[in-house]
């Protein structure tokens, strides 16, 4: 899976924003928290859900099942706005 080219990522100071370009049904701006921003960064390249969980486990000191649940939740939100190419 990968972030669609029609969504761009823009950082303002320490905050990451996800913005749809014209043509997408979703017409909002997503302001990501730290976890979501990490996941969005992973999705800039082709990856898998497992790959993202692995990357987060290497970065954050938290139980794998907690991280996996967070990743699943964020991916579901990104799917709901059609931001993913799968």
């Amino acid at each position, binding site marked *: 899976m990968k972030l669609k080219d029609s969504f*761009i990522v*823009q*950082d*303002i*100071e*320490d*905050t990451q*924003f996800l*913005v*749809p*370009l*014209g*043509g997408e049904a979703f017409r909002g*701006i997503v*302001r990501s928290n730290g976890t979501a921003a990490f996941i969005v960064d992973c999705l800039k390249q082709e990856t898998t859900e497992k790959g993202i969980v692995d990357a987060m486990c290497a970065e954050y000191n938290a139980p794998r099942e907690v991280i996996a649940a967070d990743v699943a939740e964020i991916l579901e939100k990104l799917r709901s706005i059609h931001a993913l190419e799968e």
Partner: protein
Amino acid sequence: MIETCKPDAVLAKLVPPVRPNPRIIYVPSQFSLPFEHQGKGYCFNTLTKQCVEGRLPEAAKAGEGYDEWITGQFLVPADKDECAYYNQISALMRAYSKKKDVRGYTILPTLGCNARCVYCYEEGTKPVSMSSETVEQTIRFIRNNCGGSEVKLSWFGGEPLLRPDIIDRICAGVGEAGLEYKSSMISNGSLITPKIVDSMAGEWKLRHIQISMDGAEADYVSRKRYYADRDHYHQVMRAVSRMSEAGITVTIRCNVDEENAGGIPRFLDDLSVGVAHKDKVDIYFAPLNAVRMSENDLALWTKLRDLRPLVEGAGFRFRPFLGLGTAFRTFHCMADAGSVVVAPDGSLYPCEHCPPGSRLGDIWHGVTDESAKKAFCRTDVTREKCRKCPFLPDCTSFASCPVQDVHCREVHEMMAIDALRRMVDRQESEIGGEDGPIC
């Protein structure tokens, strides 16, 4: 903190909230514009557009009574790169507002003109007009690129009214394609007849026109230098009146330098007598480029600012050449807003000045040189003189813009503070001095 103008609502939602940090020393933001009015201090933030009553400290820490100034970004960390911060916000707003389709088309039916204005930047260009093939392909180009949305046609030239037949055909073609459209025009006004006004209000769906008039009659004649020897001065005034009666909003652009500035009161007298629906007419005074690029422009700018009472006294609306934005300005001109210029030979450009090297493609092949557009409207490079300017958010944000004013900062400040003081006055007269937002 008493607020006299609320911050831009979109930006307020978007920008990450600032939390005052007691370990940081905060200093006035480059976007903080302090001003005095009737013995009170005020401060306007040119980025967020919030205006508050009070005086900025030279420096402050969190908890010293200035936390609202910190969260409102009137005070920022001393080491903050505010130009980079503005560019990040601007990039976000542009991405969000960018449309996939081209909605705006500035069309140059001809580069020919019946005048020879002394200040014309197109002097020396060949007076070519669109061929019928180019006209038909322009219609197809619009149909294929507008995404079915309402199209905005802007007629420019040369003098576009030398070829009303081209305007007729393109409007008809766009209408036959089932597209909604409206149009605007920049013209010298000298070829406007009652029949043309009918076309404007009818088939052309003209909502707005800008007419250039350059002061009192003698100045007008000597500056416009029409080929034909006719009474264009009064003819244009009659045309302004007819258009205002037809419901078309008219902006009169008066190109000024020190030589014709003195005749403006006479010009306003003449215009006042000749125009019926003054509420449809606004006037703005634009210093000639040669003045704007010279060291001696400030006196003229001051004179032009002070013409407001005269214009309003004559019954017209005064439109400042540099206004005060009270909403975040995402796009600054046609070049960065995603519209396109169609030249008489069918070439596409990002800007009506058609700068050499900025040709994007043509109406037969579409935009074939995306890199030319990206290079022309590149927003990540800010001119060095603009990096610390408080008016960066209200100015063209791309370095290739052909406009180069010498004292732009001083002029912006003079105009902005004038507008802010009037805003405060308006607030006091509207709500009897009580606190509350006014814009």
